[in-house]
């Protein structure tokens, strides 16, 4: 039986893993390669690296970091941030990433999904999506709208329809982040996760809002997610991947327990 995946997200800036803290800005919490190795040894199923300043600075993703991770970590990992075109995807994959993630670029230029999938296979292309809860309307029937720039720009696009379109274009997976839940530690947005997961045939990773293991259990069952993404829960040592997985197992969620 396929296990539900626990995925740790590392936001990277200037070769350091960083974590946004409200009103304070970002604090550095460690070296990405060292942390990747520790999480891998600790039983995480997959890793995600976001180069959080690459896009704003108009530069490609930090390929040297990708290479160093690939040399030391033998579980799947994806990279995002700073992917501008198919050539950037190619460089990231050749550096050793298993998947590349596109978010705002795909909203503005959906053909990047198709071009990437044709060039490298659907399994390499992850659609990152930020969804905001809105009043349902003719344009946004699900009541969840796709937003970019951390929620600052609403795109007039229905999150469920966009997920289906991305699947048609060749996305292999969707990482769905709830802007409303992100950073709250109050739990994932179960409704949008379930709506999207039931509307597509490809795996959906739930992101945003994880505070305690019960939140993961809920999104992996009620929310129908295939994987759950965490960051601060494990970065600050409140939980380990192992402790989260033991709690998920106790809650009846199938997870990988030996590594």
């Amino acid at each position: 039986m396929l296990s539900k995946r626990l995925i740790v997200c590392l936001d990277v800036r200037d070769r350091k893993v960083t974590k946004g803290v409200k009103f304070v800005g970002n604090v550095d919490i460690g070296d990405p390669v060292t942390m990747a190795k520790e999480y891998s040894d600790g039983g995480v199923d997959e890793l995600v690296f976001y180069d959080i300043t690459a896009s704003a600075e108009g530069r490609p993703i930090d390929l040297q970091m990708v290479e160093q991770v690939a040399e030391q970590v033998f579980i799947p990992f994806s990279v995002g941030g700073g992917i501008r075109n198919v050539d950037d995807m190619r460089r990231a994959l050749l550096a050793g990433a298993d998947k590349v993630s596109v978010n705002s670029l795909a909203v503005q230029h959906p053909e990047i999904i198709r071009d990437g999938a044709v060039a490298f296979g659907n399994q390499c292309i992850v659609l990152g999506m930020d969804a905001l809860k809105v009043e349902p309307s003719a344009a946004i029937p699900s009541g969840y709208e796709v937003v970019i720039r951390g929620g600052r720009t609403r795109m007039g696009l229905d999150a469920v329809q966009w997920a289906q379109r991305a699947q048609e274009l060749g996305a292999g997976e969707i990482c769905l982040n709830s802007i409303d839940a992100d950073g709250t530690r109050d739990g994932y947005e179960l409704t949008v996760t379930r709506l999207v997961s039931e509307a597509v045939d490809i795996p959906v990773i739930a992101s945003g809002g994880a505070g305690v293991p019960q939140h993961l259990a809920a999104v992996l069952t009620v929310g129908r997610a295939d994987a759950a993404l965490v960051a601060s829960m494990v970065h600050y040592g409140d939980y380990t991947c192992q402790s989260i997985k033991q709690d998920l197992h106790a809650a009846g969620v199938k997870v990988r327990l030996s590594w």
Partner: protein
Amino acid sequence: MVAIIDYEAGNLTSVALAVRHLGFVGEVTQDPAVIASAERVIFPGQGAAGSAMANLRRLGLDQPLRAAIADGRPVLGICIAHQLIFDHTAEDGGVACLGLLPGPVIRFDFAGRRVKIPQMGWNAVELQTAHPVFEGFESGWECYFVHSYYPVPADPALTLASTEYEGLSFASIVGRDNLISTQFHPEKSGRAGLTLLRNFLTWDGRPC
């Protein structure tokens, strides 16, 4: 030296890095002469079967692969190669494959039940038999899969390990003589995968 066949079917960086990490010399190659002189061969790959078979033939790499198997040199297939070694696949409207092992490759079909395809993630590998490559690998350890198709060996003895996805059991490791093949990615399966890969890299090609 282990030759890692590059037939333009996906990214081989991880396979090469895993071989190096284990302390072995691997060479990613499109050169039939390098494959012919290699002590052992890894036949990796991901993506679509149609283009993979076409590339393999266009680059003239199917013959040195057949020769390695005929010579008794250890050969490891991974992911799409796990399917290409069989007779035929239903993918891409039907594609004739290498026929190194008998049987077809078919798509996951759950009779209308909505199931996520591809199977993507970690799943248990249940060993069906003893094999030198399984030394230190505990049956039930999970490995990382990404696939929509799977082979159905004509001879049940070819199935060395099986895995269950949504109630359907399929051959996740197959083998005969000096050929062994995994549907999952050992280079991406943490300690479990590296255990199998290390065993393969020291295997003499004899099944028992």
